[in-house]
Every structure is written in C-alpha cells, then in structure tokens.
C-alpha cells in the first residue's frame, strides 16, 4: 500500500515537472546570476559532504542530494 502511494506520487511529480519544464528557463545571455558560485547545487561541495557525514552518523536517514559516504558512524 505504502509503496503504491509513493510510486503514484513519484509518477505524478515526474509528469508535472517534465511538462512544466518546457515553459521555464532563461536564454543563454541571462545566466549571469545563475553562474554565481552561491547559486550552484551545492554551492560548497566540501561543506555539504562534511554536514552529510555528521547527519549520517547521528541519524537513521541518509541520501537525498548525494551518497552517504564511507564510515561506520558507530558513535
């Protein structure tokens, strides 16, 4: 039951996103702000990796924006 709900939600989100994407965006000469370092995903990969490893060690969740990384987190 739960898997079917998650699957249906994912399918709906994907369809909505793909159909909406074609109407969004900017021209190549309008990317000045998007090219800034603070607008990148993630803006600081090193900081993101450090944070994710702490959360991985202290919480029962991981994933989302990347992979969990190595280490037992047994503390």
């Amino acid at each position, binding site marked *: 039951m*739960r898997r079917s709900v*998650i699957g249906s*939600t*994912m399918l709906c*989100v*994907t369809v909505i*996103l*793909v159909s*909406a*994407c*074609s109407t*969004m*965006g*900017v*021209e*190549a000469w*309008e*990317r*000045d*702000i*998007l090219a*800034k*370092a*603070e*607008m990148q*995903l993630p*803006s*600081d*990969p*090193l*900081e993101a*990796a*450090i944070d994710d490893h*702490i*959360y991985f060690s*202290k*919480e*029962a*969740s*991981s*994933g*989302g*924006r*990347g*992979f*969990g*990384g*190595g*280490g*037992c*987190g*047994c*503390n």
Partner: protein
Amino acid sequence: MSRNSKKPLAVSLATATCALLGTTTASPVIAQEEPVWEFNTALLYYGESDNRVEDISLNVLAQRNFVDDRILTLGLTVDSLTGATPYGAIPFDGPQTFTTPSGLQVRTTPANEIPLDDTFFDTRYAVRGSWQQPLGRMNTFSAGLSFSGEFDYKHLGANFKISHDFNKRNSTVSLALAVARDDLDPEGGAPVPLSAMLDVGDLCNRIGDVDKDVVDIVAGITQVVNRNLLFQVNYSFSNSSGYLNDPYKIISLVDSISGDPLPRIPTPGIAGPSHQYLFESRPDERTKHSLYVQTKYYMNGKVLDASYRFMTGDWDIDSHTLDLRYRWPLSGGNYLEPHFRYYTQSHAEFYRPSIDWWISAPILCFRRLSPRRIRCHHRWPQVRLGNRIRQ
C-alpha cells in the same frame, strides 16, 4: 574555509618558451583553457555535551579543470574521534558493570547515570577521487572511487553518474549509481546478535570479521525557472545487506515487573557484567526510499536555500528533514549564513529500549533508530562566516 587557485608552473614555462622561440604566445581562447588547480580546505570541530563524542576533522578538496570541461576531483579527510558513547543499556538506580568491547576489561557506571563507553578513540582517513567529462554536446559523465579506513572499519566504493541537458540547458536530468563494500573488524570480533555480554576473556560469542554491501541509486531533475530561481528534485533508493548491527551496542534484559536490569553473577574469580545484557540485533537487509527537493532563490545579492527530504523504508523509519539557509553578503567577499535544520524520525519497527523476554526477533537499542518525534535535532541559530579567495 578558503579557496585558492594557482597557475601551474608549466603554463608559465610554455609561455616563456614561446617567447624565446619567437612564436606567438597563447591566444585568449587557450588562456581560458589553461588547466588550473583549485583547493578548498576546511577544519571542523564537532563536540557534544557531557564529554560525549568529539571530532576534529581536516578536509581538503582539490579540483583541476582541463580543456573541454574535463574535471579531476580529489578529496582527503582525516578525522580524530574521541569521547564517550552510550553502551545502549538503560540507567539504573545501582551501579552497573560492563565488559569492554575488547572483552578484556570491565567498566563500572555509577547509579542513575547513562552507561557510557569511555574507551572510544579512533582516527578515520578517507580519500576519494572522481573524473568528469562531457559525452557529446549535451551529456556529462562522471566516475569516482572512495576509500575510508578506521581502526575497525574499511569502506571501498565506486560511483557513476550521467546527466543530460535539454531545453536550452535549462533542464538537466541525471542518474547516479554508487556501490560500496564495507568490512567491519570490531575490537574483540563482531558479536553474535542477541548473544549475552560475557565475562572478561570469554569471546565464544564473537564471529570475527563481518561485512556489508550497499547500493545507492539517485535519479533527479534540475530546472532553471528564471534568472533568480532554480530547483532540484531527486529520488533516492538505497539497499544495504549484510551485518547491519552496531557491534558495540547492547540492550538491557529487565525484570518484567520492576523494569530493573536482571542481575548476573560473574564466574568466581573472573570479572564480568553485573547485569544481563544482550548484543543488539537488526535485520540483515534494509531498503530506503527518499524524495528530496531543493530550491535556490536570489534576492538582490542574498540567497535563500531551502530543501526538504522525506525518507521511508522497510524498517518503518519515516523521517522529515527541513533545511533553510540564508546567505547574506558582506563587504570584501565575506558572507553570513544563518542555518536552520529540523529533523524528526519515527522509530524502527523492531526498536525496544529494553527487553523483558527472550525473543529471536530483531531488537535494537541504539538511539539513532529510536523515535525522535519529541526529541529532535535543532540547529538554530547557526551562523557561518565565510570568505572565498580567488587569485
């Protein structure tokens, strides 16, 4: 944090050689394609109250950009971990004695205190490298390797990612795969799940080295909405199989009426646990699904970064994570970044803080898998002061 880039000596030498030979020096186009190294370094201190875990972490990330958008990334992390970590046994109004993980000593916890293992000390080394390059005009491929080592733990992983741009490069879909093999060599050997903590020197319930395999898949789409706004949606799947227990965690066997730990009498002449404790037991497989959305919005120099993650899985742990950052630029390239993070999770279906009967079903006691609907992680206020230096 700081970031420095250095012009390689080879480039300077090439320019000087061209001048000596009387040839034309590098054109502006070639100058843009000069390979350069960028270094990003960070020193982290992480500390918990009551002399719990402390971590001093040194991190270096080096990146070299070659021609044609090919990128080599290398990373190094060194962690120094110390402090006390909970055994997992419940507090009691009398002293409790435990055998240490090595099985060679005992430690006694005073009455009414959370039993802690204060012998925790480790150094962790982690290295990783990845190579990224275009595949055709609109695709990008990357592959990487990762390794980390601790006193009792080794990790070896590989990852691959392919992404495709479309809609004037305003949309990007990506698919990533990571596989990892982790080897555990706990001090004294990994205990048999649900076996009893034994007297000093008795290691008959240890099974030595164990391992686990992890497979992660991430599929996502990134979309530019307008000049100031973009968002990302990712779906993640993760499967772990093998020895998924924390080999150092135990659970108290308690009296079903009083709730007190059941006493135990060590073998005469040999030190041992004062009460009955069992090593925790978790299922040998776990599957996780998560949905992650992130958006960034630029507002006259300030950047709002918001993300939300929902995670569920076959251990019945559902979690919600909300993360908000607001980057506030200052003069001279400095910035302030208040950070708010809210995390909550439900408990695993097999979670028990203690047990008062002997059953074979998976049982665990570690608080990482315990309910956190009430006790949540709050990271507010947290302000980061940063400065990027480019030469």
